[in-house]
């Protein structure tokens, strides 16, 4: 039995330097560092994120899967732009790029457009690259539709389930495991399988992917783009075939938020998952949430890429397998 840490001392030093770079970056821009509770009264209702829960005083509590709800209530309380480096927990996620407990860098910019936030993520990434003397090819900016169409010649925003199942079959991916429930979630499961299997592994250079399918909006606004597709105002950053960041033009409409919670729960029930009661305090705060854009970066993965490590175990003090 090994009691030793998975991170070597050089990587540990470099990780510490990356944290300093991030803190200096936000300090220079007047963005305040905050700490919100890791323990919450509600878990997220996202169909594909399962919260870890525990019991105290006869009540269930949830370990946060991201600090999003607390940070939004803080923004609605008038905090102004904020950032946080914190632990996040997701049940059942374990692999060379996943650990049940991981570190997240999440920040919100009041009054920023999504495009301004994308530019800020690119600036931070460039600084981190420079400080760590890592060379990459130029950053690429594209859309989900552009990537999907050039690979499959199908518009992901209007393709039906049968078309997507046809692509999955043609790619020799087994589709039997996709729930046979003909709804929006099934469509997204098909898109996820195709994107994660056939597109994501090829995104080697740092790639910002904008305009996600509307069904994958989570807590982002939904709007029509220039090509009249209805899309999520959401972006993701990929690098070396790995998902690194996820950002939104944040939804601020309480009625719409309530509807999305309800839809999530309908889909959860259809799949035999436990229902998640909507976070009442988040709902109540929405009317005072300022227009803002927010993004979360998987910090352990950023460290992996900057340190040239291929397994998350090599950048964590004690990954789950060492507990």
């Amino acid at each position, binding site marked *: 039995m090994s009691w030793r840490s998975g991170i070597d001392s050089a990587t540990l030093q470099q990780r510490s330097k990356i944290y300093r770079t991030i803190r200096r970056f936000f300090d220079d821009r007047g963005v305040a560092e905050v700490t919100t509770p890791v323990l919450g009264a509600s878990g997220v209702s996202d169909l594909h994120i399962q919260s870890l829960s525990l019991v105290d005083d006869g009540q269930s509590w949830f370990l946060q899967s991201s600090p999003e709800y607390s940070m939004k209530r803080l923004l609605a309380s008038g905090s102004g732009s904020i950032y946080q480096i914190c632990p996040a927990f997701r049940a059942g996620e374990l692999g060379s790029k*996943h650990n049940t407990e991981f570190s997240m860098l999440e920040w919100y910019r009041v009054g920023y457009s999504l495009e301004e936030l994308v530019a800020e993520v690119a600036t931070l990434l460039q600084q981190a690259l420079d400080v760590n003397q890592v060379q990459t090819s130029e950053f690429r900016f594209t859309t989900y539709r552009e990537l999907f169409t050039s690979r499959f010649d199908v518009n992901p925003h209007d393709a039906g389930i049968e078309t997507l199942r046809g692509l999955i079959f043609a790619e020799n*991916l*087994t589709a039997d495991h996709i729930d046979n429930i003909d709804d929006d979630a099934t469509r997204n499961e098909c898109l996820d399988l195709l994107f*994660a299997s056939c597109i994501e592994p090829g995104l080697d250079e740092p790639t910002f992917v904008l305009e996600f399918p509307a069904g994958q909006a989570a807590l982002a606004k939904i709007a029509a783009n220039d090509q009249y597709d209805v899309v999520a105002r959401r972006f993701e950053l990929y690098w070396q075939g790995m998902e690194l960041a996820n950002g939104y033009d944040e939804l601020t409409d309480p009625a719409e938020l309530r509807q999305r919670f309800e839809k999530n729960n309908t889909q959860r029930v259809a799949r035999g998952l436990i229902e998640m009661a909507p976070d009442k305090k988040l709902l109540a705060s929405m009317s005072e949430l300022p227009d803002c854009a927010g993004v979360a970066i998987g910090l352990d993965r950023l460290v992996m890429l900057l340190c040239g490590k291929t397994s998350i175990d090599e950048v964590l003090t004690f990954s789950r397998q060492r507990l």
Partner: protein
Amino acid sequence: MATFSTNEFKSGLKVMLEGDPCSILENEFVKPGKGQAFNRVKMRNLKSGKVWERTFKSGESLEGADVMDFDMEYVYNDGEYWHFMKTDGSFEQMGADKAAVGDCVRWLKEQDSYLVTLWNEAPIAVTPPNFVELEVAETDPGLKGDTAQGGTKPATLSTGAVVKVPLFINIGEVIRVDTRTAEYQNRVKS
């Protein structure tokens, strides 16, 4: 037979897929942050030897395969089956067909030990040891004194395998061969 969930798919685990027993080689957990989790699994079909790549929804399970490896001694060939005997003291014998013996046929020497893979107690694969010692049955005459580096010539071994050997090797000599590459290693003093 027990069933195994994707998170138990460790390298070497034997499971059933599409009616064939398979051995897990690699299992990668893939999950978009907000999306469906799945596992990209590589496995070897133990009957055909082919590597299959499949995606499974995380949490899905497969039935375990009743696959066991035994050290067995090759006894004889009856024209249709190659017969092996357990070396655990039971002296139990089993016949393996052509499909199960496969490529190993060219290394089979009576009284030598081989790894026989049984599925539901019937042989489906035979694996030779990494190195075997076999007699040269046929080759061009050796060149005396030529023990230095130089050319090679084909030699047919007692089992029918053909390997390249140095020029100085003669009929009747025993040589050591790496079965993974079918390469000559050295001459065995007898």
